[in-house]
């Protein structure tokens, strides 16, 4: 499940899930295959937890990699065993959906640093026998993608038909397209940016400080000390959750409506529905997410800046690319506004790349990419179909 909790979704959407291929899959990379990190360190051994859907064709040419967002996981289209909730992108991935699992072989991996089975700070550091905690190496989006590429190699897939993701998933998509340009036939970065903005770094810092200010955080050693910084993590989630919505959507959903009462209570209980909603979002989140993972993954997003590795010129990152791009943004997204997405499009144009770009009209804010946006689905269906035909993938 990604940015928004399942409960925030509109009712009535098709919640059907597909049983995962082999289900609950993991791949472990031993000392012979360390993950070389941007920081200069190496992570070894490490494990990647992933899900696959559909069947790899004989040419191994129909693989689609779905990249999850900050608080997402590998259960893009199957029930999350930890929460019992359906996959986080049921309208995008599944039989007959834009990413058609009857046609494509879909892979979704939990990122390095995550807490859903892939090696992260809650796992045991083999050097100490204790959970990594803050001794886990700082990772980057580049590291996440390098690890993903190692898994794709192990699966025997040379190049991917499509890499797709929203938000942090969009960052990974861009990283794939620039770090492995020959291995990505088409790329769909959604509601994302080629570099994390100062405002977004600021929001992340608020979240991290909230976690670290919780006395139960214990300098990151809460697992060993059997405490839980759930209050800090909940506050981090509450603050972040506001950035995933929009003023208009908040007004439409909650307005100034009071929660189970006729008048304000002259106290600090959750008088307003929006307060009650945020508190619920915070408490539901701590049930499924590790506080240290939140620190490390937000840090990875903060460090993301593709142009920095190419003399500060984003277009250079895409020079000579043969990947077909479709960039999508949303009018009411103020976390990754259209201007951020348009910067990617401008750079792709300057590199004479094959690019489509749509801005979807919606008041649902950043989270719109996870929600029922018919225009987005019809646009992406057309893009994916035509890219598949270019690659010779028949229906």
């Amino acid at each position, binding site marked *: 499940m990604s940015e928004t909790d399942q409960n925030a979704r509109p009712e009535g959407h098709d919640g059907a899930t597909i049983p995962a291929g082999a289900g609950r899959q993991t791949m472990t990379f031993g000392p012979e295959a360390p993950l070389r990190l941007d920081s200069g360190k190496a992570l070894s051994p490490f494990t990647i937890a992933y899900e696959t859907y559909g069947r790899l064709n004989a040419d191994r040419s129909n693989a689609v990699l779905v990249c999850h967002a900050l608080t997402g996981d590998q259960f893009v289209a199957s029930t999350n065993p930890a929460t019992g909730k359906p996959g986080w992108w049921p309208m995008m991935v599944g039989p007959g959906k834009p990413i058609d699992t009857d046609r494509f072989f879909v892979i979704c991996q939990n990122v390095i640093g995550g807490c859903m089975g892939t090696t992260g700070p809650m796992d045991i550091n083999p050097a100490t026998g204790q959970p990594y905690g803050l001794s886990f190496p700082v990772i980057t989006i580049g590291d996440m993608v390098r690890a993903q590429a190692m898994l794709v190699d192990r699966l025997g897939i040379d190049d991917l038909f499509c890499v797709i993701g929203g938000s942090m998933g969009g960052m990974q998509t861009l990283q794939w397209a620039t770090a492995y340009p020959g291995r990505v036939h088409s790329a769909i970065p959604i509601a994302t940016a080629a570099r994390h903005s100062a405002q977004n770094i600021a929001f992340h810092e608020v979240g991290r400080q909230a976690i670290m200010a919780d006395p139960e955080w214990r300098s990151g050693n809460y697992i060993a000390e059997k405490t839980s910084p759930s209050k800090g993590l909940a506050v981090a989630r509450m603050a972040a959750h506001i950035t995933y919505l929009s003023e208009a959507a908040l007004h439409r959903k909650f307005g100034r409506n009071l929660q189970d009462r006729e008048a304000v209570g002259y106290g600090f209980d959750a008088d307003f529905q929006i307060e009650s909603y945020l508190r619920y979002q915070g408490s539901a989140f701590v049930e499924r997410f590790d506080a240290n993972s939140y620190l490390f993954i937000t840090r990875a997003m903060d460090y993301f800046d593709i142009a920095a590795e190419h003399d500060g010129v984003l277009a250079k990152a895409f020079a000579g690319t043969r990947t077909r791009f479709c960039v999508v943004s949303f009018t009411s997204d103020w976390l990754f506004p259209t201007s951020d997405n348009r910067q990617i499009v401008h750079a792709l144009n300057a*590199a004479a790349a094959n690019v*489509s*770009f*749509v*801005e979807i009209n919606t008041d649902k804010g950043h989270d719109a990419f996870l929600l029922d946006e018919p225009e987005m689905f*019809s646009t992406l269906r*057309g893009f994916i179909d*035509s890219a598949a035909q270019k690659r010779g993938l028949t229906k």
Partner: protein
Amino acid sequence: MSPPAFTTSRVDLELIATMIEPGSRVLDVGCGDGELLALLAHTKNVDGRGVELSQEGVNACVARGLSVIQGDADADLRDYPDNGFDYVILSQTIQATRNPREVLRQMKRIGKRAVISFPNFGNWKVRLQLLVLGRMPETRSLGYSWYDTPNIHLCTVRDFVYLCDELALQIDEAVNVTGDRAWKIGRPGHIVNLIADEAVFLLSDKR
């Protein structure tokens, strides 16, 4: 791309299509719902890209498998590299741009050739409406009232020819469209300026 279903409703689109060499790289600025790009992809096997202002237009294009970005001629042409395309097409759009001269300069820079179609404000019916009725002209090519028209920079065929001279653009081909008839002309003069409802130009750099 599968052969997209298309029907061409505008005479100038078919005229433009005749000017495009098969297999070339084409940028259609103001491509609408992708009618021309689909026609060119189908009949000329071009590698086509588009720029379109409206979300509905862009969505329609991408959904039919065309590579189109949301943007406008005034703001988004400067990102493209020099000579990135064989043809840059601006069909029935130049009169709606904020800075037509700069748009034309950018087209010259980006494309080896430019194709432009526009309504002729020098047509006798237009002149007569203003002269006799004293009202802003409304014709088949100019179907708006003065207060709601997107056409903020209308010009005559002669105006356009002068601008081409100023920008050192060579007129390789010019087509006069009057009613449902269209024919090739040399360098347009006063007669064409009186009878043309629309004109289509194929331009290249004068070097």
